[in-house]
């Protein structure tokens, strides 16, 4: 049997809960050592976090998950990818987008499952005015960032930015709402 039985999962869940209670959880924080890039502002279309429940709709049921939520999964760039990401950003700043994309694809060959690389590629495609690819890469990052709501929120913000770049403001708002639902700012 390759996968933990749900029994083992439940026991692990209890263990995770115990860890949370004893205050061992300090895994949040900037996952990358590369400074955050200054992208287009993404906060303008965000709704207030206290959006009331629309009238006529019952409040959403609170699901009771079988296991207490695990601590967020951490993602870091390897040293080699960090260097390539820095190089890619420098190329991007000079407007050399095809070169920047080729550089980031090299990082992807090193760690194809790292959502941070996909997010970076998505940002670069957005700078290069290729919004559809920016959106796809962001969605890919969101899928790979399962288990890290903060990183998934960054992905949804990029999806929102990509929609806005195409004038799809309603879709953008929806994406920003998903970002806030994943990880309220």
């Amino acid at each position, binding site marked *: 049997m390759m996968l933990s039985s749900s029994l083992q*999962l439940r026991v692990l869940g209890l263990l995770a809960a115990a860890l949370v209670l004893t205050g061992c959880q300090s895994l949040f924080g900037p996952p990358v050592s590369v400074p955050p890039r200054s992208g287009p502002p993404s906060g303008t279309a965000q709704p207030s976090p206290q959006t009331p429940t629309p009238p006529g709709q019952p409040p959403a049921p609170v699901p009771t998950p079988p296991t207490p939520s695990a601590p967020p999964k951490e993602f870091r760039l390897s040293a080699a990818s960090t260097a390539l990401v820095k190089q890619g950003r420098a190329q991007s700043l000079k407007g050399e987008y095809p070169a920047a*994309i080729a550089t980031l694809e090299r990082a992807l*060959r090193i760690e194809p499952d790292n959502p941070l690389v996909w997010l970076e590629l998505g940002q670069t495609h957005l700078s290069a005015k290729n919004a559809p690819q920016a959106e*796809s890469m962001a969605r890919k990052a969101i899928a790979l960032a399962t288990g890290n709501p903060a990183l998934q929120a960054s992905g949804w913000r990029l999806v929102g930015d990509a929609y806005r770049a195409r004038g799809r403001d309603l879709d953008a708002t929806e994406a920003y709402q998903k970002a806030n639902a994943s990880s309220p700012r």
Partner: protein
Amino acid sequence: MHAAATKKKSGQTDEKAPLEAAVVVTAAQSGEVIALIGGRETGYNGFDRALDAARPMGSLVKPFVYLTALETKRYNATTVIQDEPIDVRLRNGTHWKPQNFTKEIYGPVPLVRALSESLNLATVGLGLDVGLPNITRTLQRFGLQRPPVEVPAMTLGAVDISPLEVAQIYSGLATGGFRSQLRAVRAVISDDGKPLKAFPLEVTQVAAQDAVFQLNRMLEVVMEHGTGRAARSVLPPGLVVAGKSGTSSELRDSWFAGFSGSHVAVVWVGYDDNRPTGFTGSSGALTVWARLMAGLDTTPRAAAMPDTLASVNIEFATGQRAEKICADDLVAVAVPLGSEPAWKPGCENEAATLVEKAGEWLRDMIRK
């Protein structure tokens, strides 16, 4: 890599028999083609079976039938479907009566068992229920070029396809529902190193992540319990892979397609003149596939489960929820939260007692 794959292929076949084979290996996430073998004579520059052969895909089509079913949200891995005799009256008035490979009838089976044992009757019933046009759309979203003829036999793989196209559509599964055009060339560069033409990675989401995750979990069960289990003894322990066998009518084509965490590999074995090979997908292509995978520096599948899903253990034969203390043949599947199946009678209490005890042990441990 190419040389290694060639060796694997020829090591498996009788040198005197003109049995042919084709192999495609790609990098799972980027869609880059790593190895492409078009036949026994690898230096031959003519007909390349990996690119040019169009052969019936057989049961390699089934994952796309089951994915289409999962996407309706009316089915999950534990849903019991009927494996029963089928008689479809075709438009031309003739009757189509498919059979299981074993010629047996299996009766009620959970979806995961029908897929991992590649049951034909259960799959045809499922495919007709979800609709042939929907299955066609799924295949085309994932990158099938030639639209299949929409007849009930398409649910069993009466769909012509090249090995490279199989790699294309299975890549979309390996990436959790994202299609990237397979690429063999990254860029064309001039003498002085200037890029003339680049072929950047392009990605499109073609299926929901949670539907593909549920399917892939079932394709892992294929490798543990189903038609792919013979690979287990060849693969390194701990290398989690997902895959599917395919066999066309009268054993003319033997296929295996599957993926690890970092590679997609497709193997086809057959004769150019379409003679029967005597191999099923499991007895032919799988043996090559397993040795190829074992020889690659590859990683186990480790996709994180979307939080809309739950992992449950079920009895393989019945689809009922169970734990080790009350069932022998357990498989782990992923189902949408809230769709967990009913417990096997008598099983829940035993399992619950054990969880309670584990909780007590843990509390005792923490107090100490």
